[in-house]
């Protein structure tokens, strides 16, 4: 009991911080209701998925600089083929997109393991490629999605907040929890923690790499679909890819995932994403120049990593 507390201390801390920020934000705005909650949940959904994707890879001892590009690609792909489809059609397209995303993820993992090229380089390269392909698929912003599909995130009348939350929780329960408990999932943690010990314990490195990147790809796919549903279309701009990739890295670090691998979960990063959403909001309320927001953001991330590093050094794992 006490241990489970201690082990999830980081997530706990992040949650507390989130709560504080939320209260602060609530006091700032005249009214805080369903609309605000929906903003929080729905607009961060894609990034939350992306943070999950990044977490899975980093926990497995890697890092994925292509999550943003993947999001953009799937966003464009789905938006292009969902345009003018029925709800059923959209779901079909969505399934197809998820398959593509998972496939690309698997391929990435395979290449990394076979080529022995560091994750960061491979994914940097693939991010270029995916970004390029996205521009092929959707040369300029456009596409669309069936209203029904949008309702999956925004609710039938477009004002409900719980669908977004459901979208977040369901994959956690359906994909992550089973994996986390399965041998394959534990193998991801083991490899990230100590690849040699993992191998001696009978873990297959290739398989594990592929699994972690496939799952990551799946979450990236969900992120792409989420932004399609949220914005009812696709946008191929490269800046989106870069920005969201960096945001995902910041989120997992704040969410308690050690960049050295083997440590962390998926809930912490999601809550961290919410914090990262609230911070600029609060500064908006304070009337702070958003440019200073950039500065504050940077400082926060660095400081948290620093402190987290010290805490982890106790466990002999420099962050």
């Amino acid at each position, binding site marked *: 009991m006490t241990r489970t507390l201690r082990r999830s201390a980081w997530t706990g801390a992040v949650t507390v911080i989130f709560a504080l920020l939320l209260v602060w934000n609530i006091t*700032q705005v*005249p009214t*805080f209701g369903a609309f605000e909650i929906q*903003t929080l949940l729905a607009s961060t959904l894609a990034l939350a998925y992306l943070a999950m994707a990044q977490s899975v890879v980093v926990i497995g001892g890697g890092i994925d600089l292509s999550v943003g590009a993947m999001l953009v690609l799937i966003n464009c792909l789905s938006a292009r083929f969902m345009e003018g489809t029925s709800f059923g059609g959209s779901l079909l397209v969505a399934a197809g997109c998820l398959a593509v995303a998972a496939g690309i993820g698997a391929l990435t993992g395979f290449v990394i393991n076979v080529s022995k090229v560091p994750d960061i380089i491979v994914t940097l390269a693939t991010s270029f490629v995916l970004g390029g392909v996205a*521009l092929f698929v959707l040369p*300029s*912003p456009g596409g669309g999605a069936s209203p029904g599909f949008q309702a999956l995130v925004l609710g039938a009348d477009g004002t409900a907040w719980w669908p977004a939350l459901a979208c977040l929780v369901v994959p956690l329960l359906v994909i992550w929890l089973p994996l986390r408990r399965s041998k394959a999932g534990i193998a991801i943690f083991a490899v990230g923690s100590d690849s040699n010990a993992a191998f001696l314990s009978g873990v297959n490195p290739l398989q594990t790499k592929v699994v972690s990147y496939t799952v990551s790809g799946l979450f990236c796919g969900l992120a792409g679909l989420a932004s399609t549903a949220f*914005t009812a279309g696709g946008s191929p701009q490269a800046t989106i890819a870069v920005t969201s990739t960096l945001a995902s890295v910041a989120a997992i670090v704040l969410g308690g995932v050690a960049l050295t691998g083997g440590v962390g979960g998926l809930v912490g990063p999601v809550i961290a994403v919410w914090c990262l959403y609230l911070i*600029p909001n609060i500064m908006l309320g304070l009337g702070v120049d*958003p440019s200073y927001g950039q500065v504050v953001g940077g400082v926060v991330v660095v400081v948290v990593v620093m402190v987290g590093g010290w805490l982890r050094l106790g466990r002999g794992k420099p962050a």
Partner: protein
Amino acid sequence: SGGGGSTNTGTGSGSGSGAGDKKYVIGVSNTLVGNGWREEMICAVKAESLASKKVSKVVVTNRNGGPTEQIADLRSLISQGVNAIIVNPSDREKLNPVIKQATAKGIVVVSVDQAVTEPSAHVATNDQVAYGRLGGEWLAKAIGGKGNVVEMRGIAGVPADDDRHKGFTEALAKYPDIKVVKEVFTGWDFSKGGQQALDLLNTSTKVDGIWTSGIDYTVVNAFQTLKKPPVPVVGADNNEFLNQLLNQYDKGVRGAAVTNPATIGGVGASLAIDVLDGKEVPRETTLTPQVWDYDTTKSELEKNYFPDRDPTYSSQVEVKPHTDYTPEQLFACKGPGE
């Protein structure tokens, strides 16, 4: 009226200082950080708000991102209880739902620089098609109706870029003897555009004129870098470009600045305030670009060149009759209560 209702919520959240009669809160949404033009646009909103004396504060959301981020920002502004929102949209359609929600709450939404299709929003844009056409026509005349020209566009897939391309192509359609020998995307990145110019001007293909989508002064510099005689260049009203047109005329620099004022933000602000005051305002306000060059409108160049502003500063500081602020107020970039 809706405007009145929103005014009250405005004073409710109006940073306490809302003693005066009509104190509006104006929100700004921008999704490109560290871009000079966009920063000036925001400054224009602040300056106009200040000059109008009817605004208690201006709250700005600005971060890199796409529609997703911008929708979130717009929603945050709504939650903050602003009375009007000046938005530089990252997409034509994707913001429509949230804009509708805003206007339904009685918030005035003005989309500046680029249009949105949401009917309940006001739109204040520079006529980008005209931007391309006017520049194209000037260039065609400047090179005597025949020869090779290079088209240096902005970012592939961005509406403004498409429009300008459209106008430019229209203009050249009238000149069968003019050939577009190269078409490159500068990404509206000055140093990148300069490099591309270096590459292009080194090729064996003769270039008689260059049309740029605003990446101008680095292109002019490319000629000096290469020690080649400059050819006519069409650019935007970037401060440094004006400087070149004015002060390097004797070095043979020829060109035209087609205005694309960042102060469109100020226009948006004044429109918003007018609407809040209950005045009748047409949905669309479109500024037709002016074309400045040394030979015909030297005075404009002189009037609008500010030696102590940075190079990418969009030089048309005032847009009469819309804006009321003084250049100093714009340069100061301080909103009410700052």
